[in-house]
């Protein structure tokens, strides 16, 4: 009982909520780059939060259902067909054994999530199915999906198709404002440098991947060049010697020795991860208190977002 990969596309990865509690042996977290689209996909399918889905970067994935079930695709705008018929994102669809689910390439945003009812049944390594290619861990043998891969999932015949109303669907733009919790070596950056950081426009460079997004713009100078290596949290904004900020994301190294000016709010790294090279980024400071408030609101929103049954 599975889905067969006909074409893997550019970069399709098995992801769950991420690998936690393993930093002591040097393992990073992995998990979905856009946690919001990932969470909504699971919710529309009635899955437990953090169930295993596929993260599709840029598109090109084609699957053949070898089982009767229901699928849902959320995230970046991407043309979707099921057996050649156009199908909508942000809603679950019935598929039968033999059906072909095909995604073209993203037209706004760059990461989409494809799930099935119950999630894909992928063996866990170190407590998670999340694929981290740099570590060769998780997913299927630590690798991205390849043609011919079989993704086990259950036969499901009972499920009421759900949709997220249009007005609640996220929109992906080519600019993002990232809220930053000041911290780490923030006090080593002069007031002038901090002002420059929070008032300039940065552009996503070609060097953006699941480890981090390297940005280009006015260089930020830190009073110190290096620090004793220390733990790096999700969203940490590292300023290397060239002054160009790097926002460290899901597949980041767990420790490093560059100064950091603070860390991006995860709600905004979700939007950042939908930007492609050339996308614009602005930074604005936020207190830890306000950050916690935003996280609670977002969590409550995910749980209470109005989802509707699809018309028959």
């Amino acid at each position, binding site marked *: 009982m599975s889905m067969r990969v006909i074409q893997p596309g550019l970069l399709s990865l098995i992801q769950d909520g991420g690998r936690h509690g393993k930093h*002591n042996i040097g393992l990073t977290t992995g998990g979905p780059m856009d946690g919001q689209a990932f969470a909504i996909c699971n919710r529309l399918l009635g899955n437990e939060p953090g169930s295993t889905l596929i993260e599709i970067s840029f598109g090109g994935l084609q699957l053949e259902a070898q089982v009767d079930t229901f699928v849902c695709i959320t995230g970046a705008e991407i043309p979707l067909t099921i057996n050649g018929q156009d199908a909508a994102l942000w809603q679950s669809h019935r598929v039968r054994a033999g059906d072909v689910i095909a995604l073209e390439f993203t037209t706004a945003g760059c990461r989409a999530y494809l799930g099935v009812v119950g999630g894909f049944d992928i063996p866990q390594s170190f407590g998670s199915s999340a694929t981290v290619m740099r570590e060769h861990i998780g997913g299927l043998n630590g690798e991205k999906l390849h043609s011919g891969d079989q993704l086990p999932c259950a036969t499901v015949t009972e499920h009421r198709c759900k949709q997220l109303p249009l007005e609640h669907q996220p929109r992906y733009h080519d600019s993002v404002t990232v809220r930053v919790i000041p911290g780490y070596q923030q006090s080593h950056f002069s007031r002038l440098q901090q002002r420059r950081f929070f008032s300039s426009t940065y552009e996503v460079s070609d060097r953006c991947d699941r480890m981090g997004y390297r940005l280009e713009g006015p260089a930020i100078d830190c009073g110190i060049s290096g620090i004793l290596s220390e733990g*790096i949290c999700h969203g940490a904004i590292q300023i290397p010697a060239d002054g160009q900020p790097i926002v460290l994301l899901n597949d980041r190294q767990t420790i490093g020795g560059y100064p950091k000016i603070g860390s991006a709010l995860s709600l905004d790294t979700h939007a950042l991860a939908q930007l492609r090279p050339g996308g614009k980024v602005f930074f604005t400071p936020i207190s830890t208190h306000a950050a916690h408030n935003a996280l609670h609101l977002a969590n409550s929103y995910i749980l209470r977002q109005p989802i509707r049954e699809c018309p028959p």
Partner: protein
Amino acid sequence: MTTEIHSAGENSLIVYLGDSTSPSVSARVQLTAQRVTHALGDALIDLVPSYASLLVIYDPLLTDHFHVQQAIRSVLLTLDVTEDAVTQGNRITLPVYYSAESGADLLTLAANSGLTPEDVIRIHCEQEYRVYAIGFAPGFAYLGEVDERIAAPRLSTPRQRVPRGAVAIADRQTAVYPAVSPGGWNLIGLCPLRMFDPDSNPTMPVAVGDIVCFESVDRDQFFALGGELS
């Protein structure tokens, strides 16, 4: 430096327990990590101990910044690092085949240090090293401190491919590469043991706080222990 707690991110705080590398600071980091684990319970997501700091990652939907900060403060108030705590941890001896064929930078490092390769090997084996941190890649343990006579700066151009098991030096740190990876450290030998094996339990032979010693083995012993030259 006094102990400081700084904000790190939306769900993390970083505790600085010193500003230099020393066994006593490292022991304080270890002890703090154990106590914080106990104090936070389910609200703790992960910890990253390093040379002189501890990153504490918590679940912001279960607790908040203030509670975590308070919990860490009370741990720090009762922190009493005795000599016992400094020396606790396992002692692990790692065999190394030191040679020009297994360590591409051994001869250069010796020449730059004004020593013979035999001196470099002897000095590297004489020292006991403490595992200060694990990171960079799964199973990569930062060991310190290397004797100043054989300390060497990182290569100006990192190698694209460092073999698995490579024993290397960068400044006053030494390490064994757990897997093939790019790297800029000076290679002086190869260790035949696996430093990271997802299929074995434990996954790694060392943990932060352990003491590591190196023992020189010859070519035949290296192969007998499962070593490979690539």
